[in-house]
């Protein structure tokens, strides 16, 4: 008699065989470039070596420690990521709560809310660059009409304001995406819970704290993960809006990597930068994953 185990094993084997092409593609597309960058980061490969890789151990990582521009770009990336995450989560949650209520035209409102996310980033960045233009921008025009400022402010030319401007642009673009993700979480919460809670005498604020937040916590964490990974690798928006300027005040790690590889042809150092950025990303994602699984274990 053919054992059940045998059938199961055969099915498993077929399953693996069917998945093999997909796994190979994944390996080729993800694992290979990362491993190759890791490998390359132990070599010096730049114009001083005629673009030939020469083994140099940890030299590239040593250079990074003393490279002020690397630390500045890391700091910029951290500031950008923290502030965009904070505002996008906060505003996104408010919008999600609003869109979760029943009102006329809700479908339309939901569609409009996703629009900024659906538009191409480079176009949006170009539009924001015009909005913040010193002489012709609408933002300065509005503020001056309201007499909030006397003279035009050079938004993208001042280090502090340039960072504020790119954060504002990213928040505008991505908040709706966060809202949609959180809305999905909100809709999975049964209304019965709120009714029962209200019967027990809970206020809406208590319901929000005790039911809504704990139940959408996984969605919040996943959204944060998504957004963290995207913000940490931000390139297009900033490249188009400020090019990393003024004076490197908005230069993120991705923009620095691009300069190291494309402008300086310093492939070894670029690879080391990629490796470090990747490891930071992996570390944060791993920590969040740990947190989610703890959360799951608690609720089960």
């Amino acid at each position, binding site marked *: 008699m053919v054992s059940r185990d045998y059938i199961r094993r055969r099915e498993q084997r077929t399953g693996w065989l069917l998945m093999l092409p997909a796994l190979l593609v994944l390996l080729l597309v993800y694992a290979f470039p990362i491993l190759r960058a890791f490998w390359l980061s132990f070599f010096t490969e730049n114009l*001083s070596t005629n673009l030939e890789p020469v083994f140099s151990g940890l030299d590239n990582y040593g250079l990074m420690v003393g490279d002020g521009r690397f630390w500045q770009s890391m700091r910029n990336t951290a500031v950008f990521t923290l502030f965009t995450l904070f505002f996008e989560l906060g505003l996104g949650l408010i919008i999600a709560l609003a869109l979760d209520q029943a009102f006329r035209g809700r479908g339309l409102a939901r569609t409009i809310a996703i629009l900024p996310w659906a538009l191409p980033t480079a176009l949006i960045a170009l539009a924001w660059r015009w909005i913040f233009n010193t002489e012709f921008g609408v933002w300065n025009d509005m503020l001056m009409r309201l007499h909030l400022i006397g003279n035009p402010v050079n938004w993208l030319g001042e280090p502090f304001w340039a960072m504020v401007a790119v954060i504002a642009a990213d928040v505008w673009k991505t908040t709706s995406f966060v809202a949609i993700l959180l809305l999905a979480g909100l809709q999975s919460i049964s209304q019965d819970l709120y009714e029962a809670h209200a019967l027990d005498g809970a206020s809406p604020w208590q319901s929000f704290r005790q039911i809504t937040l704990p139940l959408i916590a996984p969605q919040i964490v996943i959204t944060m993960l998504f957004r963290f990974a995207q913000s940490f690798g931000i390139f297009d928006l900033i490249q188009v809006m400020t090019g990393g300027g003024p004076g490197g005040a908005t230069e993120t790690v991705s923009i620095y990597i691009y300069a190291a590889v494309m402008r300086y042809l*310093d492939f070894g150092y670029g690879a080391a930068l990629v490796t470090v950025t990747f490891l930071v990303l992996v570390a944060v994602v791993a920590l969040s994953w740990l947190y989610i699984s703890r959360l799951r274990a608690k609720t089960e």
Partner: protein
Amino acid sequence: MLVGAHVWSQQPVTISFLLRAVEADQMQGLAEQFMAENPNIRIQMVRGPNAADAVENLYTTSFLLGDSPYDILFSDVVWIPKFAAAGWLLDLSDRVSEADLSDFLPADVAAGLYQGGLYRMPFRSDMGMLYYRTDLLEQVGLAPPETFDDLITAAETIQAQTDVDWGFTWQGLQYEGLVTNFVEIIAGYGGFWIDPTTLEVGLDQPAGVQAVEFMKGLIDRRISPPGVTNYIEEDSLRQFQNGNVAFLRNWPYAWAEANRPGTPVAGKIALKPMVHAAGEQPAACLGGWGFGISSTTPHPEEAWRVVEFFTSPGPLKDFITEFAYVPSRRALFTDPDVLATFPHYEQLLEVAETAVPRPPVGQYAQVSDILQRYLSAAISDQMTAEAAMRAAAGESRRVLGVEG
């Protein structure tokens, strides 16, 4: 294979290169003239973006792939060492005679040299200089300034005695333009940025620090407006055009802009080589565009014919006269036809003779970024001149691999 080769030999060879779309329009006339004279060679000008660094990136990407679709590199003067160091360009020294080279401005030739090879044929040149208001100098009874001190005296006198607000505008934003201003000043103090043969870095020597202190001093003494640290060419020119400033550092294009009919300063301006320290020589930072040939092109002979044509005296003269550019050939500055259109080219030649290239090192983009960062920090008062130059010199030495 043989059949294919046979068919190909009947076909005209296509020589292609990438350039900014505006320039492709301007160079179309010359290209057509060449193709009419050489029916077996077609020139294909690929129209790229109008931002020069975007064009550089496109060239870089295509060369990195190993088999560039471009036979010719149409290049800003500062790209050449990088492309040569990467091995992407052919050495042209065997193709051009000493006699022909000596007709070009010496700095234009020097800018194409990398480790003994010649990788660029100069096309149109560019250089920085001092513009001044003849009427204002006359009003206060001063001669055009020769030295840094003369400039400071003249500017302060004019600011005190006339209703002109500012003495001198230049380019102080953190970008390549700031470096070109600095190159002229450090050379004017007898110093240097990087010696291309020894790779010695001279930023932290006295002349380097003096140069930065001069630039800072212009702002501190209110000779230059505080906003100059955010200026690019257009901003500094606009102040000068409006009659708001006595002296301007800019490129040759500013002449026509400031003399445009209806401009308050039209007809009241003159140009001269940059000011310098007493006992030193003036210097003009060299810019401009030229041609290199890809080391992977299957048609180096035909590519050379194209380059030779574009950079030869006749076509070059037609081109610079029609589009008001500066020639790289010395004889064209004093050519009667050119002078009939642009009488000021006689003074411009004086400036051109003082031109110095930016250091032709492979890592130019990197060392320029370093210098830009620290110059900007110094002139916007975030660092002292000495600390900024010491840091810039240290980082530059690390990049160049010459630990000091």
